[in-house]
């Protein structure tokens, strides 16, 4: 089990939104976000991969899988409360299952992320395959 807390910054959300091509003003413009009822710019859904990463990567390293032969096989996210700049997101990540199929090893990690009010914001399932 690995735990990490990520402080969501306004410019980081905007940088991420630009990198993935998001143009929704709620991700980019604090005024537009406030008009839409949010305290600050909102994180695009796939920003979950960013705030959960600091918990998931150590969990992957701890599992002992051969990192040099690892590929990202599958990914799933489920979203709950929105994440906005200023939030502090705490993620717990752990190895959920390990199996072998057709000469490949499958490592599935689960992440659960909550905000500073302990509200669930997202859950992730990260499947890594070792060739």
């Amino acid at each position, binding site marked *: 089990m690995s735990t990490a807390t990520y402080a969501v910054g306004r410019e*980081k959300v905007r*940088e*991420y939104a*630009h*990198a*993935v*091509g*998001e143009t*929704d003003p*709620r*991700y980019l413009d604090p005024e537009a976000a406030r008009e839409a009822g949010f305290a600050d710019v*909102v994180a*695009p*859904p*796939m920003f979950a*991969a*960013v705030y959960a*990463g*600091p918990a998931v990567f150590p969990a992957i390293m701890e599992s002992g899988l051969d990192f*040099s032969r690892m*590929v*990202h*096989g*599958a*990914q*799933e*996210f*489920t*979203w709950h409360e*929105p994440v906005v700049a200023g939030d502090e997101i705490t993620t717990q990540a752990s190895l959920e299952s390990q199996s072998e199929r057709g000469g490949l090893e499958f490592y599935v990690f689960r992440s659960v992320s909550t905000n500073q009010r302990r509200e669930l914001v997202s859950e992730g*399932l990260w499947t890594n395959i070792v060739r």
Partner: protein
Amino acid sequence: MKVTPDRYLTYRYAGASGDFNPIHLDDEFARSVGLPGKILHGLWTMAQCARAQGDGLALRSLSVQFRGMGVPEEEITITTTADGNVEAVQGENRLVRRGKAVVRE
């Protein structure tokens, strides 16, 4: 939806996401581990699948399987269906298959 990752996209995504794995940044390193050159981050490609759904804040869940390795400077086509299936294809290379998006009612 169609999107062409430009030549420097992987650097911007690495900075934005914190994923600086050299397979995404360094052609020489990527070739040394048997890749054709630097490849796209799968999570960037998944973010394109999310973007293709319309209102991102209405997304309830998204799951994908990664298959082929995406490369910069070639157009990617994201195909979605009304019942939430999503795929990402680059030329003959299927990057994401069996994607499934669920949107809040």
